[in-house]
């Protein structure tokens, strides 16, 4: 059932930029591996080579002892190697079932056997815990649901070796637990699992061994049990990491900067009221589908919504993000590829888009834009070989940093960060936490929507919990525990 | 009181000023006929292409229930079958300008003279050049009609070996295209004595191009069809290059409709062939061809 994979001196260059420098190690059958490394270490690239999406520049991949050269993903899948991409690969106009079976359609004679496919799709959806009809178009799904579809798609493939590239980056604990259950079952069936994640607690929980990569090189392979989280982080980063979270400042005493009363986003959120002060960090917790994203999209005028909104005591009705930006409110979307970044644009153009008028007087000043890019690369630790390349050439985590830098460019008074550390490595995560704290100290109000409870607890002054479109509770620092948050989110309290 | 007579008219749409003239005359005929004969209804339809015209014929028969038809075919060959279909329903058919490939279908034929349209300018040009010189020609949109005119022109020129036809490119009966083609003729040929623009619209573009080049070698620009602007120029003698024209009046549309309508009311037959001759228009007879109210 399961298979052995061995990398021998695998190298990969994109043009003259070499991103893999002779990687050699092996995955033994039937085990679960955590693949660790900083953003841009080459994890995704190596796994894409394994699964037939990229050609190696040198070296070879051995499968069950024999060198194999997959020309495309279908050949790799035929050999039982399946990859769940870090970036979604779904055709938005097709339904869930159609996506799950794309390229592997079941047929009855010449015609498609849609009934069977729908039935089997429903089954894998149930396995991953997605309560959606297989006939739903993917366009209508939220990010977390798309991630579940990606996982379901891989499950439908009968993998012998399954690579999961940050499958939980957008999932809340509930879905994550369900995924772990699925993984346990696959493992019991003898499937080799490779789990790429920056959530070290998860890695610790589900893997047998960890493989660490750094700067395109293999660093070590060790039993998970022999390492602490702290040691894992140090191995990845190659230096000693101190505390992940900055020490908390006392909550500010200033008057509320943003006040929301009885806000409603038809279909997604009802009667939501809250407020944030300048200098405060407010967290939003909730399960997938709790309506957090939609609430803020409604507030920013990205979808229809109604209710009272005050900034600095002034009542406002924001009809679009442009008006919001004028009031000093910006929003980082959780959907990086679909809503966050122009992947076909250069880094510079992405970075300055929300704040372009500051670089136009009236002619754009590329030199100043370039200067801003250099500063952002520096302060956000964006790792890129080349400042002139397109955003699509950045690794997932580095794209996230760029997206974050972009929404902070206009120096907003209120910033809403939806899953700000999605796919970001520990080192960079720490930098982002410190940055968020610096923003708060400078007098900005920061709202963090996150599915990582630890993050909310470690960072926020208060955390609002949403359940089924309503505000279930707002907890302040004193009573913040994971158990509390989960209890409010699920309604068991 | 005569029985109710419905006369359908089907013709190409007014995308070109000649056709606009034809549409104008068709509507004039409708006005006059309906006024003179209260029992008569005339329906004028225009089509943008052959296949739309075929559809239109069908609609005229099945829905409007016409008893007679005057058709100016978009194209001879393409409309032969559809007109035959109309004919087979017992409708009296008069064909205008472009004859069907199977003449047995039509009851009557009214047309301008395309051969003369090419022949008269050729003769005029040959005479005024004294049988010697360089000429260029512009052609219309590639059609049978355009071929007939060009053939007639060439046939005459065969008799004048010293006249050299330097080139004949398509100006598509369009002022702008003619302007460009003429500009390039002027670049290419250093000595041109006369231009056969083959259409008054194209002559407009040709004249502008010559004017721009300030060339003096061209002595004559011969248009064709007798558009009102061109006739006016001729009458006023306002452009020395314009000395003559050849008639090809869209008024035959008026004649065809009127003749057909009246003959039907009286139960008479039309003569099978009614060719309205194309004649040479010069300053002397120009006013007979001037219709200021027509768009053409």
């Amino acid at each position, binding site marked *: 059932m399961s298979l052995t994979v061995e990398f021998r001196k695998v190298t990969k260059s994109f043009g003259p930029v070499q991103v893999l420098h002779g990687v050699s190690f092996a995955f033994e059958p039937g085990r679960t591996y955590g693949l660790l490394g900083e953003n841009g270490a080459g994890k995704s690239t190596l796994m894409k080579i394994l699964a037939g999406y990229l050609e190696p520049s040198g070296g070879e991949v051995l499968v069950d002892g024999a060198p194999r050269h997959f020309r495309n993903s279908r050949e790799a899948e035929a050999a039982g190697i399946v990859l769940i991409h870090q970036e979604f690969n779904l055709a938005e106009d097709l339904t869930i079932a159609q996506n799950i079976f794309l390229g592997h359609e079941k047929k009855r004679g*010449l015609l498609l056997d849609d009934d069977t496919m729908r039935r089997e799709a429903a089954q894998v959806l149930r396995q991953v815990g997605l309560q*959606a009809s297989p006939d739903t178009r993917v366009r209508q799904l939220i990010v977390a649901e798309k991630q579940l579809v990606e996982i379901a798609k891989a499950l439908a493939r009968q993998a012998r070796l399954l690579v999961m590239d940050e499958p939980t980056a957008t999932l809340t604990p509930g879905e994550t637990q369900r995924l772990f259950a699925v993984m346990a079952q696959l493992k019991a069936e003898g499937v080799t699992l490779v789990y790429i994640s920056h959530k070290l607690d998860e890695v610790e929980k589900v893997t047998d061994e960890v493989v660490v990569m750094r700067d395109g090189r293999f660093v070590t392979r060790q039993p998970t049990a022999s390492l602490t989280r702290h040691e894992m982080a140090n191995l990845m980063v190659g230096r000693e990491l101190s505390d992940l979270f900055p020490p908390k400042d006392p909550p500010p005493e200033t008057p509320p900067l943003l006040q929301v009363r009885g806000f409603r986003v038809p279909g997604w959120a009802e009667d939501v009221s809250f407020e944030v002060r300048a200098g405060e960090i407010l967290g939003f917790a909730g399960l997938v589908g709790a309506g957090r994203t939609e609430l803020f999209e409604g507030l920013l005028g990205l979808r229809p919504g109604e209710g009272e909104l005050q900034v600095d005591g002034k009542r406002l009705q924001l009809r679009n993000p442009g008006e919001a930006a004028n009031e000093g409110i910006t929003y980082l979307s959780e959907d990086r590829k679909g809503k966050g970044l122009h992947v076909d644009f250069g880094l510079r153009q992405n970075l300055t888009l929300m704040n372009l008028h500051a670089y136009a007087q009236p002619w754009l000043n590329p030199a100043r834009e370039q200067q801003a890019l250099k500063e952002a690369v520096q302060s956000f630790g964006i790792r890129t070989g080349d400042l002139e390349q397109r955003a699509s050439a950045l690794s997932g985590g580095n794209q996230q940093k760029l997206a974050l830098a972009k929404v902070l460019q206009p120096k907003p008074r209120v910033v809403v960060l939806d899953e700000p550390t999605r796919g970001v490595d520990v080192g960079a995560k720490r930098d982002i936490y410190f940055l968020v704290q610096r923003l708060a100290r400078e007098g900005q109000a920061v709202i963090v929507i996150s599915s990582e409870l630890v993050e909310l607890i470690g960072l926020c002054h208060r955390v609002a919990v949403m359940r089924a479109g309503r505000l279930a509770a707002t907890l302040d620092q004193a009573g913040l525990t994971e158990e509390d948050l989960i209890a409010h989110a699920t309604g068991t309290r | 009181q005569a029985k109710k007579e419905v006369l359908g008219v089907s013709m190409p749409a007014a995308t070109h000023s000649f056709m606009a003239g034809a549409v104008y005359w068709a509507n004039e005929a409708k006005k006059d006929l309906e006024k003179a004969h209260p029992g008569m209804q005339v329906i004028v339809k225009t089509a943008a292409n052959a296949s739309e015209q*075929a559809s239109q014929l069908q609609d005229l028969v099945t829905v409007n229930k016409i008893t007679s038809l005057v058709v100016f075919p978009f194209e001879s060959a393409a409309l032969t079958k559809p007109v035959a279909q109309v004919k087979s329903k017992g409708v009296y058919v008069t064909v205008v300008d472009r004859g069907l490939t199977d003449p047995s279908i039509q009851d009557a034929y009214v047309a301008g003279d395309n051969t003369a349209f090419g022949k008269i300018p050729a003769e005029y040009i040959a005479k005024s050049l004294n049988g010697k010189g360089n000429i260029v020609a512009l052609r219309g949109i590639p059609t049978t009609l355009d071929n007939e005119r060009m053939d007639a022109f060439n046939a005459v020129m065969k008799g004048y070996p010293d006249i050299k036809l330097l080139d004949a490119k398509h100006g598509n009966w369009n002022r702008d295209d003619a302007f460009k083609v003429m500009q390039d003729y002027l670049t290419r040929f250093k000595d041109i004595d006369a231009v056969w623009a083959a259409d008054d619209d194209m002559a407009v573009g040709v004249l502008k191009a010559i004017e721009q080049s300030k060339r003096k070698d061209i002595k004559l620009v011969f248009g064709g069809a007798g558009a009102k602007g061109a006739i006016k120029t001729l009458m006023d003698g306002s452009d020395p290059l314009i000395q003559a024209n050849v008639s090809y009046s869209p008024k035959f549309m008026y004649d065809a409709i009127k003749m057909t309508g009246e003959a039907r009311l009286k139960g008479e037959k039309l003569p099978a062939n009614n060719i309205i001759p194309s004649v040479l228009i010069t300053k002397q007879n120009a006013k007979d061809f001037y219709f200021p109210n027509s768009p053409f």
Partner: protein
Amino acid sequence: MPPELVERQARPARAAALWGKLHGFGPIAGLVLLCIAGTLLNGDFATVGNAMNVLQRTAFIGIIAVGMCFVIISGGIDLSVGSMAALIAGCMILVMNKVAGSIGSPVAVIAIGMLLALLLGALFGLAHGLLITKGRIEPFIVTLGTLGIFRAYLTYFADGGAITLDNALADVYSPVYYGSLLGIPFPVWVLVLVALLGALVLNRTAYGRYVQAIGSNEQVARYAAVAVDRVKIMTYMLLGLCVGVATVLYVPRLGSASPTTGILWELEAIAAVIVGGTALKGGAGSITGTVVGAVLLSVISNILNLTSIISVYLNAAVQGFVIIIVAFLQRGRR
């Protein structure tokens, strides 16, 4: 998972289905309104005879539009279909006239002509597909180029005039357009058949699924190991075949081909597809919508033919307004 969540998620699905249905009815609603207007303007509009006339003449554009629908869903475009139809018609007539001398049976001659039409259509489609995929040239440019090329060659073959089918052949061939079965003209049967086949292929075969996937996101399709180039080439060939079929029906109608044959058919076919609710940028679309769109466009000009309330010069304006209004009625999918 808590119960509310399940409930909430059921809603979007139901709403989506309803919206989908309503959306699908957009063009049909437009058509119905138009038919009511037609009946009010001229009592003869709502007769079987007129309906058959309209459907019969929609056949060409309808059939081409079915093929065009595939091309557009796959994210492509084909501007050459009108010229292609003209050139195929010309070649078909020339060859039929020629072989009529040596082959006795006119039926056999016509069969040869038909085969030729389909073959040429597929061949031209193949050329388009290869230039677009292997040559990596924008479909707009490739087919703009062939638009000129096809028409130029027809003009050349026709020597600027018309190519006309021999009378004897024309008489034998003519029932293919003018004949009918069970009171319904042949071209209408063919249109229905092509549309049904098209819908089947689009919705019930792997190929159809790939066409949609490519139009939705080409990279995703490539990652799913779909043979993107092959599928695209097949799409253009399919359209070529449809053009061939349309030509087979067109030739007996007018019995000739000339440089003005098929002018602007491309715009009509594309308009039918898009009025029918398919987005120009591809990804999803419907064959039913496309056929309804084609019928709708014919009905507009039929109504204009049947009434004289408006200056003939303004016909095109009325068409323009109606197209925009119909599109407005079924907008909002973008």
